[in-house]
């Protein structure tokens, strides 16, 4: 007899698979990667916006209203992603987006044999730098690498790389923090 936990996992798998297939059908790997980036952005937005979470969890609001709200808020995203998000909101599963993202990321690796490396820097990467990062990450992870680049001006310099739940923080901020800690200890 399936438990709630197994049911939830199966449902998350279903959402992730559906989303992956829909985005792949829409635009191939580019759309898949674009959708991945958009899901990541939505997760961070939801974390920072408690009101959105409250609305999504509020049973007094009709499911159709929640779906409409999601469609309006995330209208600029990939159409397939917006459709899936609307279904999730309608079914009250919006809070599972984080778990769905993990499964979706794993499925990208399985389906396309690529590893997505999230790269955060202060300045935009050039081609040479992209090649350097891809070579290093591909060597470490043993697969083709797709970079998901983002600019963060709060970084003083350096780079933060994340892939498969692992993170390499080579930012100047972290180095200065380490230096600060070392100075204070001494």
């Amino acid at each position, binding site marked *: 007899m399936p438990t709630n936990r197994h049911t939830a996992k199966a449902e998350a798998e279903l959402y992730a698979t559906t989303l992956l297939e829909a985005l792949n059908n829409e635009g191939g790997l580019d759309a898949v990667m674009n959708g991945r980036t958009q899901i990541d952005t939505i997760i961070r937005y939801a974390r920072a916006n408690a009101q959105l979470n409250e609305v999504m969890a509020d049973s007094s609001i009709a499911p159709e209203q929640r779906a409409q709200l999601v469609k309006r808020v995330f209208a600029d995203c990939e159409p397939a992603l917006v459709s899936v998000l609307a279904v999730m909101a309608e079914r009250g599963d919006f809070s599972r987006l984080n778990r769905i993202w993990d499964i979706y990321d794993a499925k990208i690796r399985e389906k396309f044999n690529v590893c997505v490396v999230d790269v955060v820097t202060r300045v935009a990467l050039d081609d040479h730098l992209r090649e350097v*990062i891809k070579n290093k990450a591909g060597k470490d992870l043993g697969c083709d690498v797709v970079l998901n680049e983002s600019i963060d001006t709060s970084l003083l310099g350096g780079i933060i790389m994340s892939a498969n739940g692992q993170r390499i923080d080579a930012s100047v901020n972290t180095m200065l923090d380490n230096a600060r800690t070392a100075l204070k200890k001494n």
Partner: protein
Amino acid sequence: MKKTKLVKVGTAAAAFAALQCAFPVLAFASEKEGIAVLIPDMNEFIPMLVAFLIILAVLAKLGWPVIDNIITKRETTITEALKKSEEAQVESERVLAEYRKQLADAKAQSAQIIADARATGESVKADITAKAQAEAADMIEKARGAIEAEKKAAIAELQSSVADTSIAVASKVIGADLSDDEHRQLIERYVNEAGSFNAN
């Protein structure tokens, strides 16, 4: 008894006086010369001798026992007084010795009490001194600890402040002075020097 004896003596004396009156001695102008002057006249000597003997006998019979008795009594009294005096002297000497002994005991006892009190005082003084010294040492130690803690806290605060200031300056220098190309060079260097994903 005494009275009777006195009456008897008086009677004897009265008889002697009557006898003297009965046989008056005639006083004549001296007619002797030379050594004859020293030789008593028998007419005077004999009555006087008889009278003397009578008086002597009367006194020996009646007066002397009384006198002897009085002397004996007096002697006895004096002897007893002397004896009592000696006994009193012995007693007083005994009492004096006893007092002296008691005084000596009291002196010894008082000396012992003073010595004990002095020893107790010294002991209490030593205890108080030791306690005061221990408390003072404890206070000094605590004060040293507090000073040391304050010193460490001040140094730590200073270090923290210096570290924060240094990092802030470094942050501003890096953020303001590096160009995009320099940033990219920095990124490349960090990527090459960074650890592996497999190592995490």
